[in-house]
């Protein structure tokens, strides 16, 4: 089993609104996956479906080869940190660890205690009195101490200050280096992606816009700048994702598997951040103008 998460036309409807629609993904094991998109795009819905908190309205989802939430053994394979990292404010850190030990047969108590000690936290402190960053670290400890094969994090750093954010990612990367775990990290912040993720999924308006290995995505996207040109004059193998024109100059972001040989263009590499922003912008424009939906890029 080489896929951590597999969905096929997965959809979730609330009343009349589709929070997630027609989502088809194959996320390989062993990667750190960035799940990016604006608020309301369906990231939380996808993660909640993966962990079995909700059930699909249409389509299928399989995690680690089985149905999500299908009994305690499946739940034990997945670690989850929800948005805003909820904890029991009135319980101490050590009571949270006890909860972990009581409710998880795969609990590694030594790992949990070591991590709390490394973080410099007093186990007798109630989690309600911790800072946001500290609480996020405790939540991450709870998720990883059950030794999951798949770790899902819903916007864990969104509400943290830059230092807390850095410390959280340091801790997370250390966990990835130490354990054989697939991580899916959702975020509406595009920064920090390139250093941390090696697989990317862009989710906008409840649809998957882009999905693939970061290296492959960066190799197949280029920024072209040169004299003003009509983008429709480009060969069919080059798909324009984003374009901007002045009276003299055109700048395009294109996807192309073949190298760009036209000498009229100055070709520069694209950063992951620019790539994500371009696809998010394209999706938003497509939503505003009634156009045929863009095909999903793999």
């Amino acid at each position, binding site marked *: 089993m080489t896929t951590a998460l597999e969905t096929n036309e997965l959809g979730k409807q609330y009343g009349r609104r589709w929070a997630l629609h027609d989502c088809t993904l194959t996320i390989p094991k062993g990667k750190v996956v960035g799940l990016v998109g604006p608020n309301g795009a369906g990231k939380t819905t996808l993660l909640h479906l993966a962990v079995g908190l909700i059930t699909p309205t249409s389509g299928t989802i399989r995690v680690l080869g089985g149905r999500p939430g299908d009994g305690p053994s499946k739940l034990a394979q997945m670690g989850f940190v929800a948005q805003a990292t909820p904890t029991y404010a009135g319980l101490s850190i050590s009571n949270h660890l006890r909860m972990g030990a009581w409710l998880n047969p795969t609990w590694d108590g030594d790992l949990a205690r070591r991590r709390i000690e490394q973080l410099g936290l007093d186990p007798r402190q109630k989690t309600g009195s911790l800072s946001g960053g500290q609480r996020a670290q405790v939540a991450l400890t709870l998720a990883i101490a059950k030794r999951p094969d798949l770790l899902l994090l819903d916007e864990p750093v969104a509400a943290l200050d830059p230092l807390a954010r850095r410390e959280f990612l*340091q801790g997370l*990367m250390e966990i990835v280096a130490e354990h054989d775990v697939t991580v899916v990290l959702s975020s509406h912040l595009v920064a920090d992606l390139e250093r941390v993720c090696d697989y990317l999924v862009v989710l906008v308006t409840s649809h998957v816009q882009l999905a693939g290995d970061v290296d492959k995505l960066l190799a197949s996207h280029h920024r072209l700048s040169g004299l003003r040109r009509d983008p429709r004059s480009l060969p069919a193998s080059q798909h324009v994702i984003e374009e901007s024109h002045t009276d003299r100059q055109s700048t395009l972001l294109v996807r192309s598997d073949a190298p760009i040989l036209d000498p009229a263009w100055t*070709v520069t590499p694209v950063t992951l951040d620019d790539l994500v922003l371009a696809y998010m912008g394209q999706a938003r424009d497509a939503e505003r103008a009634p156009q045929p939906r863009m095909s999903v890029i793999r």
Partner: protein
Amino acid sequence: MIEFQIDTGSGVATYLQIVHQVHQALQLGLLEPGDQLPTAQKVVAKLAINPNTVLKAYRDLEREGLVQPRPGMGTFVIRSLPGTDPATLNRFLATLTKWLDSARAAGLGVDDIEAIYRTAIRNCFFEAVA
């Protein structure tokens, strides 16, 4: 032990930055054969980067014959990079100075020369697709 820095704004891939920093350290004598490179875990705990990036860099260095992993112990330097000898460096400095003089005489300013330099470096050392 060597400590790595990552410049996310430079446009250079993270793993390449690590490879270059190891090369530089070898040339400057900060790293010698027998020294251990920091474990991926240590590197990412400080830099918050994907551990696969570090492993990729170390694999590249292994392919270049500069380092070797020892199972259960870590990755160790096995060869040093010969520093370029001063005579060669002076020879190329002289050539470049002559070139700069003739460029200036032809009317090129500092910005022109910098643009030419950057394009040439990119074409030579980094795989550009153009």
